[in-house]
């Protein structure tokens, strides 16, 4: 049995979560025929400002065989909070990961809901990650630097049963880039010019 609910075209047309599912399915078909088009690289340029404050610009990425450009250059500042004796010019990098994960999951929920003919009315989430600072402060070698665990709580109002909504949320995780990045190991290579 498939987990994609079969919907007739009328119910699909009247559902609008703002996601262009036809375009996504078209891209999927095109990339099945030409896998090279699916090879993307995302990147960012970063510069230290002062203290723990870094300024990172995201403008270009590579995909569908050529360099692509965002509508504008996005600049994101990251820093540490004042309680860390810092200046709080931006959110902390671990918080940026939480922003990233919840953004990816929410985008997925909207897309899956659109594909399944489910009209979303409101989707709210609270995400939290527990971190024991004894790790990054080098106090206890048995404590990891990163999060011990991340919890996400979704509050969704939609024209669907609870099980249908839970299934949309499950499918979003299954096909989420950041969920994969966070839950599975990823090689990171850092070099000095």
């Amino acid at each position, binding site marked *: 049995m*498939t987990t*994609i609910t079969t919907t007739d075209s009328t119910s699909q047309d009247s559902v609008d979560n703002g996601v262009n599912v036809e375009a996504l399915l078209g891209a999927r078909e095109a990339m099945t025929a030409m896998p090279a088009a699916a090879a993307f690289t995302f990147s960012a340029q970063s510069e230290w400002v002062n203290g723990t404050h870094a300024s990172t610009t995201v403008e270009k990425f590579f995909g569908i065989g050529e360099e692509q450009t965002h509508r504008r250059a996005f600049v994101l500042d990251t820093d540490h909070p004042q309680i860390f004796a810092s200046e709080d010019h931006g959110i902390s990098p671990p918080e940026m990961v939480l922003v990233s994960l919840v953004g990816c999951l929410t985008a997925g929920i909207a897309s899956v809901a659109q594909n399944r003919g489910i009209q979303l009315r409101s989707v709210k989430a609270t995400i939290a990650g527990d971190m024991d600072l004894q790790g990054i402060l080098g106090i206890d070698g048995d404590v990891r630097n990163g999060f011990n665990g991340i919890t996400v709580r979704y509050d969704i109002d939609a024209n669907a049963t609870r*099980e249908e909504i839970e299934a949309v949320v*499950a499918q979003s995780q*299954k096909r989420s880039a950041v969920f994969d990045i966070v839950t*599975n*190991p990823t090689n990171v290579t850092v070099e000095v010019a």
Partner: protein
Amino acid sequence: MHTTVTIIGAGQAGLAMSRCLTERSIDHVVLERGEVANSWRTERWDSLRLLTPNWMTRLPSHRYEGNDPDGYMTAQEVIGFLAGYGERIDAPVRTHTEVESVVTTSSGFRTTTTTGVIDSAAVVVATGACSTPRIPAIAAELPSRMHQLTPIDYRNPDALGNGRVLVVGGSASGAQIADELRRHGRDVVIAVGDHVRLPRTYRGMDIHWWMDTVGILDERYDEMEDIGRARRLPSLQLVGTPEKRTLDLNALHGVGVELVGRFAGVSGTTAQFSGSFTNFCAAADLKLGRLLDTIDEFAADHGLDAELAAPERPERTVLPTAPTTLDLGSVDTVVWATGFRPDYPWLEGDLLDRKGQIVHDGGVMNRPGMYVLGLPFARRRKSSFLDGVGPDAQDLSGHLAQHLDTLATAAS
């Protein structure tokens, strides 16, 4: 040698096709690298039983006639059943004959084997879906002292060392092996990703009876919205035991198997497991709920409610938080129950996709006169089950007969 059809493989699929061709008076030969039911003889563990109840063992003109229709056949019994079938239908089997290549010729196909060459107008590939285990690349990163095996090599708990066993994969094979090892006192960890959870019985009836009766097993490949996805579904988390017990993750936890997420990587001497375990459990529970809803609707629509036990829902999968790492120093043995992906070095490259799998449309391959049987959801959801090869063989032998007629007309 010349014949009309070459069938490769004398398991249930090859024999079923043989019977269908005999019924149509089409000459053929069945090539078998070992003995009839070879895989059942050489690639099954000692305690293995079918997942499907005996009454579901139905092949063209031969079905289970024993006195335990609701029981589950052992591998030995399957061998006996198939060997008996082969004899009963007088299948023209050439044993100890391995196929080296199948090439297209101007008059059909030339099959080169270890015992000679066969020219035929048509070829049926019936070598099964489970000939080659698919082992993830991380296997190469495990310490060389570790004993690594697959369900094809596994026979019984005594054949493994005494230490901790890591079973990778929570579908039927992985769950059954983990369960057996644990019941024999081993320390077992099972790494589970995507899986399909089912109760053995529901409202008093075997779950396969439900899937058969509701028509799920007969769903056709061309009716599915995403056939690729349907074909990649993990095998059902079931076991066939006289007690008809359910084998799900709650049950494994109940006997003391430790559950972790999908085996995702190796870092030094540490195994890494995915943090997605909770989601896969939630997804399996939801999928199970949808199946039981379908069954309850069917029962109500067909007036069956009065004869059945009341509807109910199994408990959600509730497990302790799974660790994401494991010290490999504590593990002696790894069982890769990570599925199968047959390979076909003996077939021409243009018949295969970029992953080396046979390209086909409901079992009709990309070359007139070539067919494949027994692959997951090839024509029907049950195509790779014992009970599925018969209907598929009936369909494809009809298509094959028409193909032969076309050739005859063209030649005249």
